[in-house]
């Protein structure tokens, strides 16, 4: 079964689905939704089979496929997945069907074509899978850039308030980052002997000065994508304006491309430069954790608030990556997965609240728990997961990042811990202002607020809650897949774990 071309099929399948959905008649929106959902479930099934086939202790890169594309430039369609990519692919496959289900009525509100909305979601899935599955730098770049187009139209055509501004800002920021990367990609191609193959490029010796410039080119692109402070200003706008489902994918998956890119490209290809820049990257991560958390506390718009919490979380992931220990690295990758689940859930739940109230402002809520107790409960759970309460999955990843960092860099770990306190502040205060306290009289007059979670919505949130709890108590299946890949990455940059605390810690924490 391992000979089956999983990655290319997974990449192409959503695209085919998108074409089918796009050409369904506009007058039959229900059919389009069902086909899109069915198709994304098909992708999920295939992904599960792939996950089972993956040998956790086997080769670093598995499912490798390669077909020639532009021989003149040494470009190939090369796909391969390591443990990190596998986890992200799984996250995509899980999130997309849930997002489709959650967005069931979103497109109708916009007066625009419903089939096109779901087709765009499937196109987005195709490019997201492609970007994580690519093992050819050129191919990666192609997916990295093309990914912008469906997202641009999802925000611009189906978004809420200020959608045009947000869509353009998102596109321009990402494009600017992408063009920096393009220059670095071309530079890498020239110094690497006219090849784009990741494995060949990781063997190339580059002079120190060139290496630093190339690192910067890639890093800026990924830092904008992730986003790290100070390249983050597009995310609150885009996250605030995007329809809730698209926002969940934007923050849950799209932004992980940035951190994934750093792990896959910046560290192994430019190890010396990565070590040289690490203090700066750690500083950016720390500033992001504190600064974004403070801004989140002050937000009155639910979706913007969630966006800012994500920027703080990306700070944690950045710290985990640049601490250069296996625990911190594993924690960072696990964080990418858990953040996708927790924030995805948070965005979807917030979306459900906003759809009922017709407003995203926290001040328009108040005591909503009395009207919609189940929904309020789910929001509370999503909030707790987001602030990394023990027992939920994000706790393990945050804890791994902090202890992994503490063994090598105590001040950074201590400052980062402050972020946990602030997280409690913004989450609990948000939950309190929306669902607790006395009932806002205006709220009870809104028709939608009298309807608690529907069956469809319960189906959307249940798998996410289950996964968050499950991975909170038993993350071993995931860490077993991630660990070898992170260890290999740490070897690439020539970093060894400090002797006394290495080894069993991951297992202990993951007990």
């Amino acid at each position, binding site marked *: 079964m391992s000979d089956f071309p999983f990655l290319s099929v997974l990449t192409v399948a959503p695209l085919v689905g998108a074409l089918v959905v796009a050409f369904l008649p506009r007058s039959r929106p229900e059919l389009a939704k069902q086909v899109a959902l069915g198709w994304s479930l098909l992708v999920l099934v295939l992904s599960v089979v792939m996950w089972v086939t993956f040998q956790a202790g086997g080769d670093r890169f598995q499912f490798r496929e390669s077909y020639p*594309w*532009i*021989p*003149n*430039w040494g470009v190939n369609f090369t796909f391969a997945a390591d443990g990190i990519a596998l986890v992200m692919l799984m996250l995509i496959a899980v999130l997309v069907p849930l997002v489709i289900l959650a967005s069931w009525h979103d497109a109708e509100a916009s007066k625009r074509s419903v089939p096109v909305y779901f087709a765009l979601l499937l196109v987005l899935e195709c490019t997201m899978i492609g970007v994580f599955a690519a093992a050819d730098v050129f191919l990666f*770049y*192609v997916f990295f*850039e*093309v990914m*912008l*187009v469906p997202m641009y*139209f999802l925000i*611009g*055509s189906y978004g809420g308030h200020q*959608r*045009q501004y947000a*869509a*353009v800002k998102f*596109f*321009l920021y990402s*494009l*600017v980052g992408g*063009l*920096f990367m*393009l*220059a670095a990609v*071309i*530079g890498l*191609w*020239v110094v690497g002997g006219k090849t784009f193959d990741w494995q060949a490029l990781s063997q190339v010796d580059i002079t120190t000065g060139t290496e630093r410039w190339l690192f910067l080119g890639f890093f800026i692109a990924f830092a904008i994508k992730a986003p790290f402070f100070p390249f983050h200003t597009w995310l609150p706008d885009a996250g605030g304006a995007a329809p809730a489902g698209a926002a969940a994918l934007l923050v849950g998956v799209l932004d992980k491309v940035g951190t994934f890119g750093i792990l896959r490209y910046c560290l192994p290809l430019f190890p010396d430069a990565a070590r040289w820049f690490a203090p700066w990257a750690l500083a950016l991560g720390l500033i992001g954790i504190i600064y974004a958390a403070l801004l989140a506390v002050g937000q009155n718009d639910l979706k913007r608030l969630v966006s800012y919490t994500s920027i703080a979380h990306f700070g944690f992931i950045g710290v985990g990556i640049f601490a250069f220990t296996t625990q911190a690295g594993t924690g960072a990758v696990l964080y990418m997965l858990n953040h996708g689940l927790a924030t995805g859930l948070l965005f979807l739940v917030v979306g459900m609240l906003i759809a009922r109230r017709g407003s995203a402002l926290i001040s328009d809520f108040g005591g909503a728990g009395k009207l919609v107790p189940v929904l309020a409960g789910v929001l509370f759970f999503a909030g707790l997961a987001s602030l990394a309460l023990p027992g939920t999955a994000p706790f393990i990843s945050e804890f791994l990042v902090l202890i992994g960092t503490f063994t090598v860099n105590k001040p950074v770990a201590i400052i980062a811990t402050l972020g946990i306190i602030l997280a409690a502040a913004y989450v609990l205060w948000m939950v309190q202002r929306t669902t607790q306290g006395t009932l806002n009289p205006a709220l009870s007059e809104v028709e939608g607020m009298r309807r608690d979670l529907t069956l469809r919505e319960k189906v959307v949130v249940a798998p996410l809650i289950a996964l968050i709890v499950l991975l909170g108590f038993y993350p071993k299946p995931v860490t077993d897949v991630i660990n070898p890949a992170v260890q290999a990455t740490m070897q690439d940059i020539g970093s060894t774990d400090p002797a006394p605390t290495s080894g069993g810690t991951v297992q202990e924490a993951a007990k």
Partner: protein
Amino acid sequence: MSELQLPSIDYAALAPTLIMLGAALLGVLVEAFVPRRHRHLVQLSLALLAVLAALTMVVLHADDRLITIGGAIAVDGPALFLQGAILVLAAMSLLLIGERSVERGGYFVAQAAVTAESAEDRRQAEGQNGATEVYPLTTFAIGGMLIFVAANDLLTMFIALEVFSLPLYLLCALARRRRLLSQEAALKYFMLGAYASAFFLFGVALVYGFTAGIPGRSAGVDFATVNAAVTESPASPLLLFAGMAMLSIGLLFKAAAAPFHVWTPDVYQGAPTPVTSFMAACTKVAAFGALLRVFHVAFADARWDFTPVLGVVAVLTMLVGAVLAVTQTDIKRLLAYSSIANAGYLLVGVLAPNAEGISGTMFYLVAYGFSVLAAFAVVTLVRDADGEATHLSRWAGLGRRSPFYAGVFTFILLAFAGIPLTSGFTSKFAVFGPALDGGQAWLVIAGVLTSMVLAFPYLRVVVMMWLSEPGESTPTVAVPGALTSAALAIGVIATLVLGVAPAPLLDLATGAAEFVR
């Protein structure tokens, strides 16, 4: 008294040029003898047939590598590749020029001599059939371009320059509507073009002087002699630099590079849109074909002298094109500034000191030609009662009114912005890669930075079309005739194919990237 020695002429190798010029002469006769009502069909068929015949000859002689008529013409890889490119793009332009169903009577004025804005003028704008002189003029221009990219000495190059420029000046003046704008554009183009030609000619004279006195050679302006003179001439290098500078001015003017670009927006806006598309696609190919030949053959050994200067010109061109494109409110002017910026990217390819630079530039020319033709084809379709609606505010909400054409135009704009899976991305890679490989990192960085700026105006048009609500004055998209549809389809499909599977054309360009000397 020595006997006159006739040069040997390889007629077969020259056939494409001879066919085009012959067809142009025939076209003049058609004007004189064929009844008016048949002329349009006869002229259009004649021009298209000639282009096809010439293209066939180019393909049949694709392996020729020779210099003929006494060293005046070089038939080699780049010449044949670029001639093929010019002919394909010219065929598409001819389809746009020949369209008569979108605008009644075609895009051209019936009688150019009628005073603009007079009652007579309004009458002819209403429905009289456009002048058919445009076909012989276009055919002459194509013939001149074919010589221009194959010229092997500076004088032949100058003559070719005039042969293709003069018909273009005239064509610019022949718009059916907004005739004052069109005539102003033509006059501006003619005046500035005449200056540029004068510079070129003066440059030729200086270079001729520089070639005098090489041991064992007589003075001359063929590229082999110039090339030898660069290293061996006893004359002051100042003569060479001044000559090179003046030649460059003449060529860069045609290529629309800054600071010789000022004519471009006015002419692109004023000229009839099919003529604009012809200039944007074919003139660009011709101008850069000549630039490649001059700098890679004649002045190849003076590379270290001209590269910094031309590099500054390239950076300036990219900057001016990108920054001023941001402020434009007219779609034709926006495309004009985008064409200027693209001239800058092409110059990056020209300055790459390797064969990949040559093939990359040629690839870029073809890819850009297809996209820009498709873009202008859409511009001809967006119109109201007064002709084309080119002001950007009028394009608001076009995506709702006609999603298909708005989608097509969006795709082309994404190609211009260099998004992968379009030819815009592969062609940028094709010129930036060799330039970086050749040590011109600063040009590549400037190219990348200006691409960021340039993305904004393109994106603004996309926002206008899709994300704005249609207003009262949003024009409709006219149903294109068969000719425009064909040109549009070819352009869009080529933009996609060259973005997804560029390998065949790249192979072709790589195989053709060697000049004969």
